[in-house]
């Protein structure tokens, strides 16, 4: 469905754009048909940047994004519009995704004007009704309301309904539930999971490992723009190989197990080393070989990691 190959994004910073900041650095992964892949990373890992590049909202510096065989960067005005008929996105802050001075169901009108200009009114209303029911919303309580009169959960579902109107193939969900309350959060998650059964592929971007585990078939662990480990979610959670993933798994606050008193040395963050392994400065197993960039090594089917110490770990 969607193939990311060696994707990078370099920002110009410093005086006259002297220094370069590698927000995303040669990232590659795939999302198959009817598959949910979670892209997990802390803030500053570049996960949102990747999401925005896939949606064509920001330009990419190098590498390619291939959707069903066509390279997305070559798309211009009308081909890009055709691309948007298949690929849509939902963002983090529901209240910022709506223009506060218009009614919230204006997002549907936007779709109607651009993609279905000649559809007749009642057929469109019926389509909207079905989409709203599909996301578990009652049209009477939701339509014709201003964004501040609806809850965060309702607003996010409206956005998903908007995407369903185009019967898209691929959805980028960028931290869609981090702003929602615990109780409404799970319903939106279940909704996303249900959509998978309707033949939709989802890239679920999040920093919360529990959510990633709950919903995704495959996971990609991202740190400072580099993919450190990727593969089937169960394998990564139950038997992580990369030291960073291990640290994440122990640091996640669980409801059934207390934290192990592993002391993480939180030295001041060292700026990105572009060449070596990005986790070098905080990794307990770091040794001189880590100065060169480790390459992704297949540990078992559908599970690979990027660390020079992997061979020993697999043997040991």
């Amino acid at each position, binding site marked *: 469905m969607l193939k990311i190959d060696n994707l990078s994004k370099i920002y110009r910073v410093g005086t006259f754009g002297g220094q370069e900041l590698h927000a995303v650095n040669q990232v590659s992964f795939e999302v198959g048909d009817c598959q949910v892949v979670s892209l997990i990373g802390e803030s500053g890992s570049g996960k949102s940047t990747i999401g925005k590049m896939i949606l064509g909202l920001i330009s990419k510096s190098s590498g390619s994004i291939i959707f069903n065989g066509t390279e997305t960067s070559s798309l211009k005005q009308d081909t890009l519009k055709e691309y948007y008929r298949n690929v849509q996105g939902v963002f983090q802050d529901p209240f910022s*995704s709506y*223009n506060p*001075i218009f009614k919230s169901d204006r997002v549907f009108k936007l779709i109607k004007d651009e*993609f279905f200009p000649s559809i007749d009114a009642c057929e469109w209303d019926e389509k909207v009704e079905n989409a709203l029911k599909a996301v578990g919303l009652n049209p009477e309580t939701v339509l014709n309301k201003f964004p501040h009169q609806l809850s965060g959960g309702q607003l996010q579902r409206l956005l998903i309904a908007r995407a369903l109107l185009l019967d898209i193939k691929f959805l980028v969900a960028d931290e869609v539930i981090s702003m929602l309350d615990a109780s409404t959060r799970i319903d939106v998650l279940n909704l996303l999971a249900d959509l998978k059964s309707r033949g939709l592929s989802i890239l679920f971007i999040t920093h919360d490992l529990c959510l990633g585990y709950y919903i995704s078939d495959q996971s990609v662990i991202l740190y400072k723009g580099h993919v450190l480990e990727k593969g089937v979610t169960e394998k990564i959670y139950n038997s992580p190989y990369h030291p960073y993933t291990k640290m994440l798994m122990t640091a996640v606050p669980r409801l059934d197990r207390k934290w192990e008193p592993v002391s993480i040395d939180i030295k001041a963050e060292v700026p990105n080393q572009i060449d070596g392994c990005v986790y070098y400065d905080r990794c307990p197993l770091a040794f001189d070989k880590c100065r060169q960039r480790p390459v992704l090594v297949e540990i078992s089917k559908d599970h690979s990691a990027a660390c020079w110490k992997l061979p020993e770990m697999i043997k040991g």
Partner: protein
Amino acid sequence: MIKAAASLPTSVKKKNEFLYFAFKNTKLRVGLGILLFFLVLMFVGPQLTEYEPTDFVGPSGVPPSTDYWFGTTSFGEDVFTQFVYGLPATFMVGIIGGGLATILGMTIGFIAGYRGGVVDEVLNILTNVILTIPALALLLVLSAYVKVRGIFIESLFIGFTTWPWAARAIRAQTFTLRTRDFVDLAKLSGRSSLKIVFTEIAPNMASYLFMTFILMFGGAILTAATLDFLGLGPTQGTSLGLMMNMAVLWSALPLGMWWWFVPPGIGITAIVGGLYIMNVGLDEVFNPKLREM
């Protein structure tokens, strides 16, 4: 921490809520009152006086009295008539000059704010350049060379040299709105950049644009008054600034004819002051932080 919970009862729509709060704001009412007073005076005035601004109506240098409300000039012209006939010129300059400055400011502000990158850099430098050059010095030089000057040309001059103030403000505002998600969502819906600017960003800033226009309107009047005062204003017709120029030129000061130069000054100060007070009132209505002292 109640953010969205305390929303309005559904009956009061968003529009009424704004009007409801707007008219409770005293500063807005006072500013609007002053402005309306002078607008009415502009239309009603000419009916109140049977003279023309340059008619010789009576003895020269007469202080205000019942038959000459604002007294007469040293040429025996009626000051009140000149004042009333000067008002349209002042409003005209405000509307055209202020309007032109706002429109120019909007276009450049939107393009720079929305497009970003190199275009933003270039437009920003252009704005700063024109901002640093003292506008009046430029106007002085221009007016000196353009011999025949009407109010329209003066308004154009003012419009073309004061737009950077509007451009800076609108660019900053567009910048903040551009990063909002609903703009990205509009892009995802296949909307073209131009459409996005005018259907998503501009409506959101409608209040801000109106307030910018008010400031430009006031600024244009002040600049025009200064130009007229220096004798570089319109060569025919009358305006409040021109009245002051004549007053100073024909030594109204040493002769103690205060009624010749006080009314025009009060007129300009009141109109521009009213505009500024209205602007602050609107500012309080739109961001409550300023209201809850």
